[in-house]
């Protein structure tokens, strides 16, 4: 069932398909990594520093 794999964090799917959650997280983190890669290396350290000051 494809529907089962769309919401892997729900408890019944965690129990019935324990592998769904790691797979989901793997795919999600790959797509999120694209964000990281496309934003490139634009002064990573500087921006982090600035943000911490803001907080």
């Amino acid at each position, binding site marked *: 069932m494809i529907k089962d794999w769309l919401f892997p964090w729900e408890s019944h799917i965690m*129990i019935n398909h*324990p592998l769904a959650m790691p797979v989901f997280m793997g795919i*999600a983190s*790959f797509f999120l990594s694209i964000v990281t890669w496309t*934003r490139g290396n634009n002064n990573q350290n500087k921006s982090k520093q600035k*943000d911490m000051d*803001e*907080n």
Partner: protein
Amino acid sequence: MERISQYQLFVLTVFFQVGTTIIFGFGAAAGRDAWIVTIISLLVGIFVISIYLFLSYLNPGLTLVEWFPAQFGKWIGTPIAWLYPLLFLYEGGRILNDIKYLTTTIILVDTPFLAIILFFLLVVAYLQYCGIEVIARIGEIFFPYFLVMILGSVVLILVSDILRVDNLLPVLKNGWKPILASTFPLGASQGFAQSLELAMIWLLVSTSHKEIVKTTLFATVFSGLLILITVLMIITGIGEFFYKIESFPMFALVSKVNIGGIIKNLDAFAVLLFIISAFFKLSLHLFFAIRGFQILTKVESSRKLIIPITIISIYLGYSVSSNYEEHIKVAIEVFPYNLWIMLLWILPFALLIVTLIKRAIKNRKKEMAQAKE
């Protein structure tokens, strides 16, 4: 730059490690031998936390999510690093579910889940706006009360004479197997190996790395002892059978307190203890998740992320578990195996090996360069 003091790190570590175990019990699958599980888990926990601290020493100036890109390279490291904020988010959702089941079974029976989750998150989200310094200061304020309440309940339980040491016997009836089974991965991960998340704030502590190591290990022993005391009290107080079947064993123990018919029905006490520790654990989970997202997406301000993450948490708090039975089953049988083993044990160890090898190669090169000169 935000800074927290050494003592604040200690407080946050204890709150984080004690977390929800104080009410759900520890290693209940091992029955009356759960206290042995606690001791072994503590020892394993100290070992694994030392490794995390060593990793942080090897990667100076970097938080948990930056270790992986730094050592594994951009293409492999980034996807691995992204796993962690997702895990923190999911664990935050699990804490919300703990809260939702405890409050709706024990104190606010007719209240809908959503109201509890919403109001809890409202406060937590506000804290995220205030930042880690405020979270740490609140922890500093609450910590003495938290300790006094635990100590107070220990005294009341001792005075009301409900503990039966006989309940601990026989020791090791079923041998070491069930003990080891509930020590790894569940016992050693719950609270102890979970402290990997604290690697997100070790950088912010305003002392040397050596002091951080000392404080963290001391806090680990401290919270391990706290857990050990509660486990011992619960087993001797309500017996093996109830330790296994009670949904909230600490709650069952405290409500047994009866001193001369005057001091009794201290249920609210246990609920308060639970809410405090759950509150800090949830705040920290979400703080680490937001910080992780912020570093990895390279967003300038983490404030932009608070609202989306809070909304995701509301959704997770609503949908992670559909009933209490499943919630506990996932916590004991599924979640430690499919996520924790990978993320808290295998990946950090792999990282350690890679880091050490890279260091060795670098040193070798340096030596060779020096030799050439």
